[in-house]
């Protein structure tokens, strides 16, 4: 029975926020400690996962796979978010323009 699992991610390939989000998704299964460390060949993100309830070695291994896949998904999401930020804000501004929830800069929202 292992008590923790260590996962290593390349800090260039994975922005820190994607690893944080991936870990958060599994906080009902384990607690996570995330560190960004300097290494001679480039920075890494080191994740230490400690299951909330005892897990077999296979169970822990499976959790590691889930976190890795989720980290990949989070990278894709980050890419979509960055590329579509402008149009997203435009669409939302247009959509809410009649509600009084969006006010011009410096003005109070409509009463």
């Amino acid at each position, binding site marked *: 029975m292992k008590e923790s699992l260590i996962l290593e991610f390349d800090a260039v390939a994975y922005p820190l926020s994607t690893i944080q*989000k991936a870990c958060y998704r599994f906080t*009902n299964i384990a607690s996570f400690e995330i560190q960004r460390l300097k290494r001679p060949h480039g920075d890494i993100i080191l994740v230490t996962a400690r299951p909330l309830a005892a897990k077999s070695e296979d169970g822990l291994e499976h959790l590691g796979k889930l976190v890795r896949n989720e980290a990949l998904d989070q990278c894709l999401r980050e890419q*979509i978010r960055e590329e*579509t930020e402008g149009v997203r804000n435009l669409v939302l501004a247009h959509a809410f323009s009649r509600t009084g929830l969006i006010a011009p800069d410096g003005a109070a929202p409509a009463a």
Partner: protein
Amino acid sequence: MSKFQPITFFTRAPVSQPAQYELLPFRFTALDGARYVATNLAGEYTLIAREPLQRLVSKQLRAEEPLYVDLRAKHFLADEHSRMAPDLLAIKVRTRHEQLANWTGLHIFVLTLRCEHACPYCQVSRQSQSKGAFDMSDEHADKAVNLVLQSPNPSVKIEFQGGESFLNFELMKRVVLTAKAANSKLARPKDLTFIAATNLAVITNAMLDFCVEHEIGISTSLDGPCELHNKNRPRPGGDSYERTIAGIAQARLRLGRRSVSALMTTTEASLPQARDIVDEYLAHDFSGIFMRPLSPYGFALKTKFYRAYTVERWLKFYDEALDYIIDLNRQGVEFREYYASTLLTKMLTCRDPGYVDLMSPAGIGLGAVVYNYDGAVYASDEARMLAEMKDTTFKLGTVDDSFHTLFTNETFLQALDESFAYSAPMCNDCAFEPWCGSDPVFHWGQHRDMVGRKPESEFCQRNMHIFRGLIHRMEADPFVRRLFIRWANTC
């Protein structure tokens, strides 16, 4: 100007060349081991495997691929042939949120806490029938009516709740008459409707006469077959079921079938009886059923009723009932499950049915407001149930306050702001977010946090399971897809 596009419009990029396109905002969530559900800003969905998803994001899709055409039609990407896509998307998002500008439409009056039933799962403490101290006063009711009519919403529904609302019938009459008179004097009278939540046990002909005269709808409780209903809803004489069934028949006779609806609540005893409960509703000629879990408030918690079953067990019960209802439809019996219908309306149309628990920004205060028997004003029915447990976090104020003071209450605005699912952790990545809600009262009750910890959230677990289940059923069976489209469009 020619009516037709020039020939160059139809010129496609050579096969095997990736198309030139821009991504539009979308989210994705795993459906199963092989596929993802992706939704755009307006909540339109598509299913996509991981490999094409990767190619979509890295701009490797080719224009002649059916997936490309589908994604363009559903506003997941835009190219030179779809320059209007962001505008169309904005109109769809705007339609979905149009109710926001109207503000609160549902105003709940808790006329009394008194009730002759002793349901162990009841969310508010049962009080003796004789205790006038638990009745709303005339003064509070008049002030509440005044607040109701200040809502900017052109359609306002006043719902009477209890306890047993008809135990304070005199006040119900006062509210109806006062509201109608005041409404008729408005420059722009509202579309004003009334509904009474009642167990029907104490209803009389005189009460029904009044309901007929003022078109007051009836919403009652029917938990299932006789034995289950009477077990869940004890009262002196042990005849809750008999009185409910007789009351339903009487009310329908006077008000019409469509003016009488019923709700069930799931207890541990209900779990093995999913089909029997559906059959009970069918036997009494209801056109559907709302399969409801217990809420984690009030008596349900005090008596440990809420923890009597897990969310997984309830979902098994829900799935069994839903599959049974689908089979009934397959056999030609028209019947629906109302929670699924509400979700499907959000999933398959641009409309939002305005179900308070499934709104973001949260439905509290915006979708409903509660005037309690003691003059306190709460942001939702669940908020006043929480208050019965001595937690007044979601109290907006009292009927003595102005409309402006109540709805600019700092706690209320903070709850709306913090729980906005569009920016909540995990919700902001979730493909189901456009169909879901934030329910800060539920999460506060569970985690003492308005946002809640989503990986542990039963609200999240329940809804994500149901979303996935609805999609799986639709994708696997064309009959179910047609059925669900019908449910979505008549919700």
